[in-house]
């Protein structure tokens, strides 16, 4: 189904919902062409060519919400009827104000790439295999991995006049390289992500995965103790995405379960730390001119000089908190109601080089591709070091295994004592590497 058709189908759906006497109606349609390629034991096992997606419907009667979804657009009217009947039988939510009203959208560059969309599955397979070969530079390596190319068109239409259409491409996946040598095993994994054919660099990913695999040979357990955690670029980004995503989400703020809910204007991170969320980042994986409800996206200053500046909202939590809608609604699935979520975070850089930062670390763990995040909304952080190295007297001594890190969300932000000058720009986010002092490292020795 073409874009014009999904827009027309969504409009008709909204009209049908109104004809049933719903007060407000939203129809969201996604049409996704997906190719998946799987690699096991260094060879492709096969490929998948799929047409996925469907429609999600929200009907409001007063403040009562009924939601329904269907994989078949031919059954959109039935889904609308279901949503309407669910709303009729549901108690009203006193906090619901309204779905978003129409607005003008700014454009975002780099969300759709014709060349990436035009790649056939044979071409994708050929190129991916170049990466697989690069991930096994010699005997003793085994490669596994997967690649997904998506071409998606989607529409959000609501009964207040919102009509938002988008078309996007993306390529994502990973290459995992495993080396076995003298009874020891090293595993390296490197992601592939982007929206543009230029970002599809499987050879680079494969080579890096093999390098990582070699570097993890000889992993050892460490002693338990207080030390520093040095987070490489991806570990820093992943951790901050997780921690800030919980802390500044209008959902947790409204419920009083955010560790930042009463900290607006307060020092919540070290003074050199600033972060913005920018949905207009060109080519970002979560970049978009409007959110999943059709509200215009906005760039948000979250923390500036360590001071908390803003929360992120969708239409529901903006109304509930009495603050502006920042257009951060993200729908976990076509069935589920959206919640406020970060799009692309950009973290300020510091003055250090990564090797200087390590050489100035007396004792610590260098994390690669890991993530320090709390369990749910708990303030405790207790995470595994999936890939990392022990650092002592400024030297990377050996890779670690069976190692945990314990801290709190407060200390994680406040104890950032160094950030690198260089940053990693990937997937629409930017992050330096950084160091957190005084974390508890639990080791198996």
């Amino acid at each position: 189904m073409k874009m014009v058709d999904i827009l027309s189908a969504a409009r008709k759906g909204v009209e049908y919902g109104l004809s049933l006497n719903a007060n407000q109606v939203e129809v969201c349609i996604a049409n996704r062409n997906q190719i998946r390629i799987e690699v096991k034991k260094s060879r492709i096992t096969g490929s998948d060519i799929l047409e996925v997606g469907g429609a999600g419907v929200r009907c409001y009667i007063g403040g009562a919400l009924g939601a329904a979804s269907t994989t078949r657009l031919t059954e959109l009217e039935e889904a609308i009827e279901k949503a309407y009947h669910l709303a009729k039988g549901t108690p009203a939510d006193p906090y619901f104000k309204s779905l978003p009203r129409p607005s003008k959208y700014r454009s975002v560059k780099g969300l759709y790439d014709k060349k990436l969309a035009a790649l056939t599955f044979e071409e994708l397979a050929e190129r991916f295999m170049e990466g697989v070969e690069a991930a096994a530079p010699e005997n003793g390596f085994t490669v596994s991995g997967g690649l997904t190319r998506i071409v998606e068109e989607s529409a959000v239409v609501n009964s207040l006049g919102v009509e938002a259409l988008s078309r996007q491409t993306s390529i994502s996946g990973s290459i995992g390289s495993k080396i076995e040598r003298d009874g020891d095993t090293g595993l390296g994994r490197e992601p592939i992500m982007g929206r543009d054919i230029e970002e599809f660099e499987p050879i680079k990913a494969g080579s890096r995965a093999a390098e990582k695999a070699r570097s993890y040979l000889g992993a050892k357990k460490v002693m338990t103790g207080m030390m520093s955690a040095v987070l490489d670029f991806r570990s820093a980004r992943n951790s901050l995405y997780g921690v800030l995503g919980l802390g500044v989400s209008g959902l947790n703020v409204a419920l009083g379960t955010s560790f930042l809910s009463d900290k607006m204007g307060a020092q919540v991170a070290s003074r050199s730390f600033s972060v913005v969320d920018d949905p207009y980042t060109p080519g970002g994986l979560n970049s978009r001119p409007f959110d999943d409800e059709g509200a215009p996206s906005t760039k948000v200053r979250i923390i500036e000089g360590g001071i908390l500046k803003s929360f992120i909202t969708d239409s529901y939590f903006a109304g509930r908190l009495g603050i502006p809608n920042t257009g951060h609604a993200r729908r976990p699935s076509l069935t589920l109601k959206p919640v406020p979520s970060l799009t692309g975070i950009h973290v300020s850089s510091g003055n250090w080089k990564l090797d200087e930062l390590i050489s100035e670390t007396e004792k610590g763990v260098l994390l690669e591709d890991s993530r320090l995040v709390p369990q749910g909304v708990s303030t405790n952080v207790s995470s595994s070091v999936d890939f990392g190295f022990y650092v002592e007297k400024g030297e990377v001594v050996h890779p670690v295994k069976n190692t945990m890190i314990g801290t709190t969300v407060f200390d994680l932000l406040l104890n950032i004592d160094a950030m690198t000058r260089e940053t990693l720009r990937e997937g629409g986010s930017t992050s330096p590497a950084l160091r957190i002092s005084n974390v508890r490292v639990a080791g198996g020795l």
Partner: protein
Amino acid sequence: MEDLVDRARRVIERFTLKKDDFVDVRFFLGEATAINIRNGAAEQVSSESNIGTALRALVGGAWGFSTSKSFEEKDLLDAMETAVSAARAMQKHIGEKGIVPDKYVYEGSAPLKVHVDPREIALEDKIKAAVELEKNIRKVDERIKVSQAGLADIVQREIIVNSLGTEVDISNCYVRVAGNATAREGVVIQNASDSVGTSRGWETIEELDPAEMGRKVGSRAAALISALSPPSGRMNLIMDPGLVGVFIHEAFGHAAEADGVLSNMSVLAGKIGKRVGVLGVTVIDDPTIEGLRGSFPYDSEGTKTRRRVIVKDGIMNEYYQSLETAAKMGAEPNGAARAMDFNWKPIPRMGNTFIEGGDMSFEELCQEVKEGIYLVKSYGGYVNSAIGQFYFTAQEGYLVKNGRIGPMTQNVSMSGLTLEVLSNIIGIGKDVKMAFPGTCGKAGQSAPVSGGGPHLAAANVVVGGR
């Protein structure tokens, strides 16, 4: 059923298959409702219709997979053509050829086996059940800032027809109710949750005592506010049956999935017949136990399920098999190939995984551990099977001092190594309970599972407190 089977047969017959080629057609019809009540308000009441067809083709040793949202014969033919073309295009890239053994052909039907079909229950009764649970959580303590009750029922039907002659029609029902409480005092925020999940019908909810479940969840969240910070380091611990379920799932179950073993991405490769745990440790996965969340009579390839003995008295005994992995290993398929819906291919995975009971009482386990921690209930975990390192979380704990249970501690996570962990078991309780009804994620697909066992004592586990 008859009509769809005939249609699938006609589609299959239109494709000329050579020796060792294989195709299958899997119709999927899923219906779900979900209710989420938070702090007294109906946060979401939703209905989901997930209907479509999955088509696989194994041609010249390469796999192709395609889907159609339609059941129309013309659309199925187009989708199968796509799957066959995808397989043909991949032939030059494959290494070891894919195979499906021709001796395993299944015919069967397993209609929905429930006392009360959740689709027959009025919406207001479903909402009432969730509201009742939420209310009972909220009223426990004024420090509870969020009380939440979720109720979901899913009815799925799969009709599987393949070129070898398999014709299977199965229906499954999954009902799950979950309560969650978040308590806050100053800057301390703590969470507790519990759930009941079955492959039974609405009777799951009718048998539930929402007052008792709500009270327990709320009380635990409130108590955690003033609990001690969890300890850190290598220590001895006791796990409750729910945590044992997650532990065995993450520490061992995933590494025993044959697809990972065959692709050299599991530390359990080549371990059949070898010692992987101490005497007395037996790990079972049994999807045939009626009513558990990970139960299903046939898998998504149409293979009849059976009880699997993964580890027998410390010795690795079998892996989780699909048709293809079994053929490649010279083993029998054991009904472990599960697909989330029609958009995904079946892959080997778990059902109801548990450790068999031993002979120790809880008090004896505490004496055995002497100094350490008793950990209770889980939020889940994950594993990297290729290097055999796993991670899992406990919702709460209690210090064990001098062989006795001491003060409560807050949530904490643990890490261990697959090849060490079953050898580090120092005590097996006798009180087996399938206490973890969860959802397993693998390769982008989720599947209902359960896990459990007796209370279990293990030595030298790394606990990541602060």
